[in-house]
């Protein structure tokens, strides 16, 4: 259950960007095990660096797609960072946040606009301040914290992301704020005091991803049993196979099965 296992089994190869490329891209049959760990993080990978950037919708490279559609579909990667102006109300909201929150310049790492959604990446230590500003500032008024969840991006140094979805009922807007921490220091301040609704959700993110929300009133497991070991939704969590009572065979765990993708 450490991060050291994540890139060893994937059958991928390290590129100079430090990304692990999927084995399937170099395997025309597509039969090689992908191991599940070749995943390239969204919104972090520059478009030029995505291994899948130029392959078609079926993922075939080197002209091995015999369906006749090879190369017709140009896929795009998620943007790393969006330059101003963002368009729509996004500029208004980010300007309001900048005006109301002195830590904006220091703590906002990136702003991404993708598929009509605004994501603000901030430093972990500032999340409670951001939440309070978003809730209280008259020009923002994000009264509702819709969702808190975790995502594990194994290809990143700060691989554990906590993702917050805010909803403004006054202006009918939605906004995503994301913070990233490492396995070694998975500490994020709790926003429970600002949004009590975060209570169960932060407990779930702790349970599933091992993100420690400092200041949470009772950060205990919520879905798994209290004495459970490990955090199941991390990408390197070992998955069990299923023994079959026939000549000692067993069904391999999902991430070791033959994959077509």
């Amino acid at each position: 259950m450490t991060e050291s296992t994540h890139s060893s089994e994937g059958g991928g190869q390290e590129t100079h960007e430090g990304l692990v490329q999927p084995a399937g891209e170099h395997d025309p049959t597509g039969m090689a095990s992908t191991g599940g760990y070749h995943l390239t993080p969204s919104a972090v990978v520059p478009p030029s660096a995505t291994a899948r950037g130029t392959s078609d919708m079926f993922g075939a490279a080197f002209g091995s797609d015999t369906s006749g559609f090879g190369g017709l579909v140009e896929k795009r990667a998620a943007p790393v960072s969006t330059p101003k102006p963002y368009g729509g109300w996004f500029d208004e909201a980010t300007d309001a946040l900048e005006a109301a929150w002195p830590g904006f310049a220091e703590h906002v790492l990136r702003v991404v606009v993708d598929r009509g959604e605004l994501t603000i990446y901030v430093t972990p230590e500032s999340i409670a301040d951001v939440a309070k500003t978003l809730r209280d500032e008259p020009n923002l008024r994000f009264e509702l914290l819709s969702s808190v969840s975790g995502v594990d991006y194994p290809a990143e140094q700060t691989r554990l992301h906590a993702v917050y979805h805010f909803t403004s009922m006054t202006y009918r807007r939605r906004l995503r704020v994301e913070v990233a921490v490492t396995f070694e220091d998975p500490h994020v301040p709790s926003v429970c005091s600002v949004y009590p609704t975060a209570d169960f959700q932060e407990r779930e993110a702790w349970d599933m991803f091992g993100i420690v929300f400092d200041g949470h009133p009772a950060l205990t497991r919520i879905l798994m049993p209290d004495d459970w070991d490990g955090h199941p939704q991390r990408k390197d969590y070992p998955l069990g196979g299923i023994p079959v009572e026939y000549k000692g065979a067993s069904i391999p765990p999902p991430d070791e099965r033959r994959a077509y993708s």
Partner: protein
Amino acid sequence: MTTTEPLYGAPGRETTEGTVYTVTGGDWDAVVAGAGDDQRMVVNMGPQHPSTHGVLRLVLELEGETVTSARTVIGYLHTGIEKNMEYRNWTQGVTFVTRMDYLAPIFNETAYCLAVEKLLGVEVPERATTIRVLCMELNRIASHLVWLATGGMELGALTAMTNGFRERELVLDCLETITGLRMNHAYVRPGGVAQDLPPGAVEKVRELLKTLEKRVPIVDDLLTGQPIWQKRLQDVAFLDAQGCLALGVTGPILRSAGLAWDLRKTQPYCGYEDYEFDVPTATSSDGWGRFMVRVAEIKESMKIIEQALDRLQPGPVMVQDKKIGWPAQLALGSDGMGQSLDHVKKIMGTSMEALIHHFKLVTEGFRVPAGQVYTAIESPRGELGVHAVSDGGTRPFRVHVREPSFINLQSASAMCEGSLIADAIAAVASIDPVMGGVDR
């Protein structure tokens, strides 16, 4: 072996497995003396209890009959759906999400599919969207009827249960006609719906509406004017709008506190802006208000279904993009619904490209461009949100579902504490949590 401090008047001894207390019978005086001055009693209600709305455990701290502290313990129905989805392709994900909130499967499917479609950037055909609206509103009626049935049963109104389940079965019959299954439909798919409405479905739904128009008022007659039902719900489980927002509570609970927040109106999806319906609210912020709101919502859903049936125009029900649309050409054969033999003949005999397409889509599925989206719809219980992350592959990188049952359940403590233990039942019933959704 050492003897330790007696607890609750019982002597204990240390063993390798911890302290073991030997509790024997005795005089009541000794029991009272052993308890000391502390009159608190902690009661574990559930997880197997007919009145906790599923496998929910309530840890209640009681003083007499008054609840001084209530904590909900969940996780008994955790099935790891979010993790499992990461090892199936995007289309197979539907089969998982439909099982989360098992009383609102169509909503789970639609929320998930809207997220996948937003990631893909595809436009769903008009007819598919209308069918989705039709099925969602049918499902909303079924879900609210189950709430009436189980909520009534938990408060002792057994006729509400038999009536509620009877009417719900009629709605499920319609959903079965359309999707093939009563529950866990997996009918809404990324790009559209699995198949078009079968012949006779529209007539059947119209027939259902006629029946419901007669039957829903029966619920009103049975419960609304009934003094016991009123006394069990009025001024019970109070939570005002501010408390709702702080605790993230949405849906009928928020609307019973007077805030007309309904995503179908405030952030329309699936063309809801073109339907005419009202958002029922109440101002009492209690269990009674939630009852009234849900009954009124059943009637509003019937209006929407009526309009959806009128809006149905012939057309495709799956995106025309052959790289995404599921290649099924379903037809009714002698052994039931299955792949059309003509289609099999075509792909096997005459078109290698079609065969390859079929094989690729079915074995590995389509690729979804990298990125993340959040889509939210109004489920019978509130905001059902799906946060879907793609890494560009054929499987979801991460899918998180913001389940309204899970979030709303947090309000149980606020509603129960300080009330009588009997009202705790009414409070949990008025939240309407579905444990399949809470635990996922």
